């Protein structure tokens, strides 16, 4: 990975998140406040380092770091960890927020599988201000879905193994719903609306049933089913949690799937 400054900060962030993940596991077992404080400090250090890595990449490339899978996973995991940090002081979410770091590890781990080179010159198709509107809003939305995923997984674990060591089930259910409630409009605006406007000027049609477009539609439909069922019938519980998990798995497929399925979005595949 070399010794470029962005990569030094990248690895500092990743190792910090790994250390915080270990801390989070210890906290889950002991529930000692001091352990949680240490986890918080380490996670915050990781987030700061990741922020610097993103900033360095932005400065070096001359454009927002939103192109290519490395940058995208870096941005997505940064936004997800940031969301957990924002929720850190919320009552009843002590254990949930302690698990910010594993999300960072997962996102940065996936990012590390892809080339980290900094492209100063964007290819013609990506030379549009819609690039960063489309991609950054989609990343923020998917970060919110990542939060819902963690809460929903905890809900499912509680339903399976009992609730003694977990946050209150209503709280987890509400966090899942709220996170989807934040992410869903952002996803609609960023991935669908901004994406359609950009696609129209770049490819001659706002929608082409490209694999990434289609899988984005599936993400939208899964969360639409979740929200519809919740609004109309007040549906919640383990079924809703399972659907939230499914939604995030489809989201991951959307983020990474175009690399295997080809199509208009597979620029750097």
């Amino acid at each position, binding site marked *: 990975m070399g010794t470029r400054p962005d990569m030094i900060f990248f690895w500092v962030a990743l190792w910090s998140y790994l250390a915080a993940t270990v801390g989070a596991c210890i906290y889950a077992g002991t529930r000692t406040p001091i352990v949680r404080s240490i986890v918080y400090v380490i996670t915050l250090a990781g987030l700061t380092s990741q922020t610097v890595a993103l900033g360095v990449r932005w400065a070096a490339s001359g454009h927002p770091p939103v192109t290519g899978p490395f940058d995208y996973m870096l941005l997505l995991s940064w936004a997800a960890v940031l969301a957990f940090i924002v929720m850190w002081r919320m009552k009843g979410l002590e254990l949930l927020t302690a698990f910010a770091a594993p999300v960072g590890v997962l996102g940065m781990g996936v990012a590390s599988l892809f080339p980290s080179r900094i*492209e*100063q*010159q964007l*290819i*013609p*198709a990506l*030379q*549009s201000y819609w690039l960063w509107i489309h991609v950054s809003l989609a990343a923020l939305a998917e970060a919110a879905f990542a939060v819902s995923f963690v809460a929903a997984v905890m809900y499912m674990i509680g339903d399976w193994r009992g609730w003694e060591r977990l946050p209150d089930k209503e709280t987890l259910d509400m966090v899942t*719903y709220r996170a989807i*409630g*934040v992410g*869903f*409009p952002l996803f*609609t*605006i960023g991935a*669908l*609306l901004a994406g*359609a*406007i*950009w696609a*129209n*000027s*770049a*490819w*001659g*049609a*706002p*929608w082409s*049933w490209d*694999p990434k477009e*289609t*899988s984005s*539609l*599936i993400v939208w*439909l*899964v969360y*639409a*089913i979740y*929200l*519809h*069922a*919740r*609004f*109309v*019938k*007040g549906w919640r519980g383990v079924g809703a949690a399972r659907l939230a998990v499914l939604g995030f798995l489809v989201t991951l497929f959307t983020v990474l*799937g175009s690399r295997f*399925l*080809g199509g208009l979005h597979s620029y750097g595949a």
Partner: protein
Amino acid sequence: MGVLGPVPLVVLVPLVLLAAALFLQKFRSWLTSMRTAIWLLVAMAAISMIGALVGQRLPLEAYTERYGDAFGLFLFRSGLTNVFRTWYFAQLGALVVVSTVMCTFRRIVRLVRRPGRRLSATGSLLTHLSIAVIAAAGLVTALAGFKYPAPRYLEAGDMIEVPEGGFSIRVDAARTEFTEDGSLSEYLTDVTVFENGVEVLKRRIEVNHPLNHRGIGVYQYEMLPSSRSIRRAFIGVVVPVPEGAPLHRDITAAPGETVEIEGTDLSLKVLEFLADFTYDIETGTAGLASIRHDNPAVLVELLEAGELVVERWFFMGRHAGHRDDSDLPCRIFFLDYIPDFDNGLTRFEYARQPGTPLLFAGLGILSLGLCLTLWTKRPQGVA
């Protein structure tokens, strides 16, 4: 029927009407139920998943090669390889729209009757309404839209009629630009638009910046370097030396430039370039088999002490060295070349998408509706 006479008909018609009314009522309540809406969305997601996983609109061979003969043929015949244009996907879409429109009407009535929670209720209404707008946009484009690439590549000076556009385009320049470090930066095509032979405007077409004229979008689709010119050729020369090691010289020459071969009285000049060389035996002329750079060749003039020795085509790649050049005072190898990106071949894509403004409006309404519904206070579990 004749035996039954008019009386049974008087009974039959109201019965049929009653049955139809009951069926319609049942159908309406089925269509507007939450369970139906969810199953419709699930079905749409499932079909979309097939559309995302199975490559769409490829030739049959692509599927049989990937999935085997039997399964490939099944996918192709069942329409799963063009799933978004099947009758069942269209009918599913229609059901979703009808269901949504009926729910929208119900919501309007509810909104009028219960003025509280107006903001989130309006949001919910807009969200449902937008689905119908988006579907209408799709229908308009499906009925009156098109999108396809131009049939041929064009170079500077070429003219092409835009189908269904009532205008034609002349390419004034087509080039690919690079940064100093060699990274691709832009594809540019300068064009002049003509209507009835009269020049009406000049424009530059780039990726992300199409020409929009008379409802037709002309997009930069592809760009190739020139197939008949290059910037420089790299040529290797091996000159035999009596009772000594042969001289190896690597030279670079721009077309038309005479380059002396150091240490000899030989010189050479690159006269022509063909990206995909072919030879017509009947006419005895060299030409292009295609515009692709599949069989690049240069016509080289070799001079000795200023006198013409030979004028001959030399090939790069797979055809290099296949010919006996023992009659020449040296061996010549066409090693490489810098393509001419300033005089490129450009290809357009034409698109008319009349539903696009409606689609953007629909997506805008959807986004607004969702923000109002989800980002304003709302009691849980209530429609």
